[in-house]
């Protein structure tokens, strides 16, 4: 049976959310294909217990102590061996730093095509059609790989929602393989950082500031409100030039897609790439002095007026 493989990525002893999101999406588009989560771990790890809650049809499990802190090269050796033996139709990765490093290495060895940082996936008959943004999310391309197998894609984190599915117990297929460790590279333990990238991606509430809300007092008040409601402050492109912010807090370019329950956009006009970046937000509130700002078209609540006065009103009454 034709199989969709999802490479299950882990960091800090946890399954990366992007892998679980891909399991849910793959099941949605599978249309009879088997969804297989591929887990590489050492004997102290049990990522299968997390993964099985999301209901893949099968878990392909490799447990080997040589997989602790494995390099890209070593993981490539294992995944390529498995893929050459079992011949999956499709292999998907999260478009994380790890996924974007591993997938092309594997692509190169399997001599096939890989589409990067996709925002959507579907099958047209046997062909995986991957939707990929280009030019800073201003243009979308549909890309296929008609003559080579497996079909491969990396998918932008937080584009799809991971949904727990206990309707069937996945079959766990533990395989013994030789882990061919690349002796040229040594990987140390991962260190957590104060980086906000992940917290923007997984934040439930976001206050986003744009060109029309970049004064020091607005930034201060936005942080105050964020503290009160448990939100994170994010920005659109122009504010990344300010010393307080960097591309890590930027929504809408090169990977930072958000999916909060609530986002309050202050002084953001709504350039195409920004709108793509927030398309999975559940409730969108926008404040802008320009009644024609495109951001209003994708908002449930709008206020035409001064962002700072609106912020004051929120802080006073929340």
């Amino acid at each position, binding site marked *: 049976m034709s199989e969709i493989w999802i490479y299950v990525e882990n960091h800090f002893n946890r399954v990366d959310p992007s892998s679980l999101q891909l399991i849910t999406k793959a099941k949605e588009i599978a249309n009879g294909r088997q969804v297989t989560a591929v887990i590489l771990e050492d004997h102290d790890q049990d990522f299968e217990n997390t993964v099985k809650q999301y209901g893949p049809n099968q878990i392909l499990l490799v447990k080997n102590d040589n997989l602790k802190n494995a390099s890209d090269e070593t993981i490539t050796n294992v995944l390529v061996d498995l893929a050459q033996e079992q011949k999956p139709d499709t292999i998907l990765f999260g478009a994380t730093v790890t996924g974007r490093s591993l997938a*092309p290495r594997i692509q190169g060895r399997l001599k096939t095509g890989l589409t990067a940082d996709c925002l959507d996936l579907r099958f047209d008959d046997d062909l995986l059609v991957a939707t990929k943004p280009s030019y800073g999310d201003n243009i979308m391309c549909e890309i296929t790989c008609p003559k080579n197998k497996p079909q491969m894609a990396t998918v932008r984190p937080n584009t799809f929602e991971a949904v727990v599915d206990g309707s069937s117990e996945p079959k766990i297929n533990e395989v013994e393989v030789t882990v061919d460790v690349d002796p*040229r*590279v040594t990987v140390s333990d991962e260190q957590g*950082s104060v980086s906000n990238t992940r917290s923007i991606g997984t934040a439930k509430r976001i206050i986003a500031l744009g060109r029309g809300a970049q004064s020091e007092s607005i930034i201060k008040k936005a942080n105050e409100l964020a503290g009160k409601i448990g939100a994170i402050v994010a920005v659109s492109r122009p504010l990344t030039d300010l010393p307080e912010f960097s591309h890590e807090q930027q929504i809408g370019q090169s990977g930072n897609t958000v999916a909060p329950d609530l986002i309050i956009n202050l002084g953001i006009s709504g350039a195409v790439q920004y709108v793509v970046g927030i398309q999975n937000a559940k409730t969108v509130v926008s404040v802008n002095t320009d009644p024609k700002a495109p951001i209003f078209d994708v908002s449930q609540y*709008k*206020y035409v007026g001064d962002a700072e006065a609106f912020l004051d009103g929120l802080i006073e009454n929340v």
Partner: protein
Amino acid sequence: MKIIVCLKQVPETNNVKIDPVTHNLQRNGISGVINSFDVNAIEAALELKDRYGAEVVALTMGPPDYEKTLRLAMAMGANEGVLLSSRGFAGADTLATATVLAAAVNKIGGADLILFGRQAVDADTGQVGPLVAEKLDLPQYTYVSKLNLSSDGQIDAVRMLDGGTVRVNGDLPAVATVRSELNEPRYATPRNIKLSFKKDIVVYDEKDLDLDDSEIGQAGSPTIVTKVYTPTATPKVTETLEGSAKEAAQNLLTKLSEKSIL
């Protein structure tokens, strides 16, 4: 020590439009500039040149006007520039591009370190660096925010993950792709700009690189673009918050609270 820096020239703006009739991208009249992340890769190479006297070769694949990206690298301090240019290279995806770059690295005689920017800002794939590493059977150090080489042939790097960092080290030769956090690129000096125009740029095509037509350009590309379009957002039913800012804010809080959103 020899270092090859692979560069890409990209449109000056990402604000490209689609021709409503032909559905092709309208790129006419948009001039090309060096991909911004690649400038950090040049700087990383030049710091190794300053420290160890490394020889730095700038390498790019593209039409003849990509020469200006190589000139910029030389104006910053690269020793030489190599342009991979041929009609046969057109339409290449990441795999076909990596095939040509890897062949060029071999033609140049290899290197201790091959550097890339983390990704190009137009297509945003970040795939070509790891693909070249794979094709040359070299270890890869991707998305690095710290990079040290020692004179005894070791590389020590820090990869920035989405929520942390990880140290990776090992033997040279290797491929590295660099993040902008790695360094602050230097400016070209007037002397180097002048010198850069006195240097010849070496140009190779598929025959020079001994590549078969089936490996390059469109023929060597497993992926095809089947559709190009401008994304449209799904419009939402929008409720206008009326009154003063304070009233509107109060009104919003009430509504969000009624729906248990806040």
